[in-house]
């Protein structure tokens, strides 16, 4: 069965700092990968997704993620965070049966 691991559940950083959230998956087949974000009081929103092609994917609000197949990773990055990036971030994997498996999420707090 597929699984998704996200480490460092709570991340606290200052504005303008760089952010990197790790995502590792376990699945032997072709994967589609997603990062979702949930701002306080709002619903889950899609940040970015990878299906094929360029392994460096750019998403909304200055986020990007890199798919490294050899490392089974899909880490999320933003070079300079803002207070408004305070949110919970979820990595997800879609397998060959179109089922989504989610990681436990990273709670990110940006201090002004």
């Amino acid at each position, binding site marked *: 069965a597929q699984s998704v691991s996200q480490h460092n559940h709570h991340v606290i950083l200052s504005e303008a700092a760089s952010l990197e959230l790790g995502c590792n998956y376990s699945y032997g087949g072709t994967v589609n990968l997603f990062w979702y974000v949930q701002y306080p009081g*709002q619903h*889950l929103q899609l940040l970015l997704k990878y299906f094929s092609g360029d392994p460096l994917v750019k998403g909304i609000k200055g986020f990007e993620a890199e798919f490294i197949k050899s490392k089974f990773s899909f880490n999320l990055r933003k070079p300079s965070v803002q207070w408004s990036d305070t949110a919970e971030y979820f990595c997800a994997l879609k397998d060959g049966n179109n089922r989504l498996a989610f990681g436990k999420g990273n709670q990110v707090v940006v201090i002004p």
Partner: protein
Amino acid sequence: EADIYQTPRYLVIGTGKKITLECSQTMGHDKMYWYQQDPGMELHLIHYSYGVNSTEKGDLSSESTVSRIRTEHFPLTLESARPSHTSQYLCASSEWGNQETQYFGPGTRLLVL
């Protein structure tokens, strides 16, 4: 912005009550999903549907049931709520395609006393 709605947003109810959580989407998506999420934990798929009159159980066993009589509507029902059902329930939908992406509703936070 995805057009998927859930009601109620918050529900506090006593043990033994029957409840129905509503989910509607206006995007014409064939596929709909229900996830359960406890604080600090990952989302777990509990039900999904690939179209009208299609319902399947997900990865996490749940005492809830679902129905799909109309494309846009995918309600979840608990016949007799228990404290162990306290959780957040998220509804999602997607359309068929190579780059299929799920869009989520705002969720229902359920507290069973």
